[in-house]
């Protein structure tokens, strides 16, 4: 008997007992729907985290100054002002380094008109914005000209702009930092919170040279709070890190038996950890979905066993008119698979609808990937084969004469 014929018979058998077929299918619908939706949600969480990591800057090192020891008391990291703008320039020359951005920072009360707001003020070079892949949503960033001319210009983060100017367009307005007026030339695009939860948009950026001269007092001329170094390639992170250490040790004249007076932190490690968490989350959600799919599969097995018992006589008739055991096996197996695949299709449709709903009512953008659909579909067919096999084999193993006699 051809497979099409067997399929037609399977649909006929389902049509005979619609309520039962529907309820059996419901188990698979929920199972497949759960798997697809859970995977999609996990995937979108991972995407969200990835986006945040990219926003933070990818392939990133942060170089901190080391600790200082004064009068026998060791201060914390960054207490010593050992890093300089010249260090940053040297690091920019390392092979596979894309950008090197020195940063000085200090919190200030920033005022505009009658409003004031406490924000971190950063003195940065234009490379900083390149590393962060950060652009303005209004106005423009400052470049080398502003750096050299010691212009009193500022670029505001979104949160700071909001708090100082409300709905007004800040570009062209003036903010006062330490009572010195700065012209706002740009407002940065929304960046959201960093992985630690801090608001990256609550910041004021001014050219490094201007900041050093007019706002932020540093330990000595040229010292910086930290240096961000971006590697050009993810697979060169280890080499670049070694080169950074080497370069700084030479520049700081550190003897072999002395410790580094700086710390290099690889942010990609943090990114990897976050991605690992996201992967675990996806697996966890997928596992929860799979459990419901297995439960649905057991439902199929249950109903198929009932069906085999109920249709014992039919099996006997089929055997009497020439059905081989293989034919009977195939028939019941096909019925189970058809139920599973139909349930799977409906489940995928429901997951799609669920994904749209989640996207609409939550910040997550859930997208059902064709990969998840393919997985769920083949998985539901496998559930059909797996849980349909035992009942089908039982049907095929019936003795013709006993099956015919069954009332």
């Amino acid at each position, binding site marked *: *008997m*051809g497979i*099409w*014929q067997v399929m037609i018979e399977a649909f*006929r*058998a389902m*049509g*005979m007992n619609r309520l039962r077929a529907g309820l059996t299918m419901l188990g698979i619908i929920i199972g497949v729907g759960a798997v697809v939706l859970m995977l999609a949600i996990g995937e979108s969480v991972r995407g969200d985290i990835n986006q945040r990591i990219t926003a933070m800057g990818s392939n990133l090192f942060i170089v901190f100054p080391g600790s200082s020891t004064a009068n026998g008391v060791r201060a914390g990291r960054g207490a010593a002002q050992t890093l300089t703008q010249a260090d940053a320039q040297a690091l920019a020359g390392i092979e596979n380094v894309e950008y090197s951005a020195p940063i000085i920072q200090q919190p200030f009360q920033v005022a505009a008109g009658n409003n004031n707001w406490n924000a971190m003020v950063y003195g940065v070079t234009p490379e900083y914005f390149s590393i962060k892949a950060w652009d303005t949503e209004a106005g423009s960033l400052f470049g080398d000209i502003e750096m050299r001319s010691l212009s009193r210009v500022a670029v505001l983060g979104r949160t700071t702009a909001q708090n100082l100017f409300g709905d007004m367009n800040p570009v062209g307005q003036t903010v006062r930092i330490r009572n010195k007026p700065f012209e706002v030339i740009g407002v940065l695009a929304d960046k959201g919170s960093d992985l630690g939860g801090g608001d990256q948009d609550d910041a004021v950026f001014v050219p490094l040279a201007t900041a050093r001269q007019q706002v932020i007092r540093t330990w000595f001329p040229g010292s910086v709070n930290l240096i961000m170094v971006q590697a050009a390639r993810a697979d060169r992170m280890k080499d670049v890190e070694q080169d950074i250490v080497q370069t700084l040790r030479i520049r700081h004249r550190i003897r072999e038996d002395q410790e580094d007076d700086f710390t290099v932190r690889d942010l990609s490690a943090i990114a990897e950890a976050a991605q690992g968490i996201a992967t675990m989350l996806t697996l966890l959600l997928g596992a929860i979905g799979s459990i419901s799919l297995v439960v649905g599969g057991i439902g199929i097995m249950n109903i198929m066993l009932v069906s085999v018992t109920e249709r014992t*006589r*039919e099996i006997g*008739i*089929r*055997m*009497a*008119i*020439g*059905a*081989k*055991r*293989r*034919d009977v096996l195939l028939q019941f197996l096909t019925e189970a698979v058809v139920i599973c695949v139909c349930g799977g299709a409906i489940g995928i449709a429901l997951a799609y609808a669920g994904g749209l709903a989640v996207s609409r009512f939550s910040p997550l953008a859930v997208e059902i990937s064709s990969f998840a659909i393919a997985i769920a579909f083949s998985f539901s067919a496998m559930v059909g084969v797996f849980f349909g096999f035992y009942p089908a084999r039982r049907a095929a193993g019936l*003795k*013709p*004469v006993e099956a*015919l006699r069954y009332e």
Partner: protein
Amino acid sequence: MPDPAMSAQPKSDPHPLIRMQAIRKSYFSGDIETPVLHGIDLTIERGEFVAIMGQSGSGKSTLMNILGCLDTPTSGTFNLDGAEAAQLSDNDLAAVRNRTIGFVFQGFNLLKRMPLVDNVALPLLYAGVSMREARERAMKKLALTGLGTFGKRLPNQISGGQQQRVAISRALVCDPALILADEPTGNLDTTTSQEIMELFTRLNREQRITILIVTHEPDVARYATRLVRLKDGLVTYDGPVAGAHF
């Protein structure tokens, strides 16, 4: 008391359709053996119309199941159409039931969710015939039993007599050598029974199909030409219907 007709056997044909020798069948329930057939010898030639009679418990259903390759004997040899049944695999037996034998049951045994034409076509599908051809041939057999226009109906939309005609069409669809009918008129009224029996007679005469009917009604048995009477698992009479006592 041996019947004189029994000694008239065996006939001369060296290749009869059915040859049974010393067939025994026991059912086992745990260690307890319940013998049903005590050694049946039976030879049936091609083209015969045989009625098997006997009271319930005489073993006629068991004999029928063995003849139909639905069950296997405990001992003895059974040769059907030149093949030794004991040597056939499950698949071979399925093929024999499919091609050599056509079954007609007391309860019709149609599949109730299938249109009649598909019911009749089903054995052909198991034989590997394409759907289209199977349906065409099924329609021809339905026409042969007078139901040529009923193909699309479902079994529950026609009468019992009509259902039995469909069952006979199904039995005929693979052009078998033998039709085994187990109480084919048991669920039918007298008039319908007569119609069905006349149909069997016609098939036997016109198409030379060997027909074996199990019945306990003398009126039905009279349509046959040969009578085999069973009692307690043994053949007590085997001879022409004409001279038999009912």
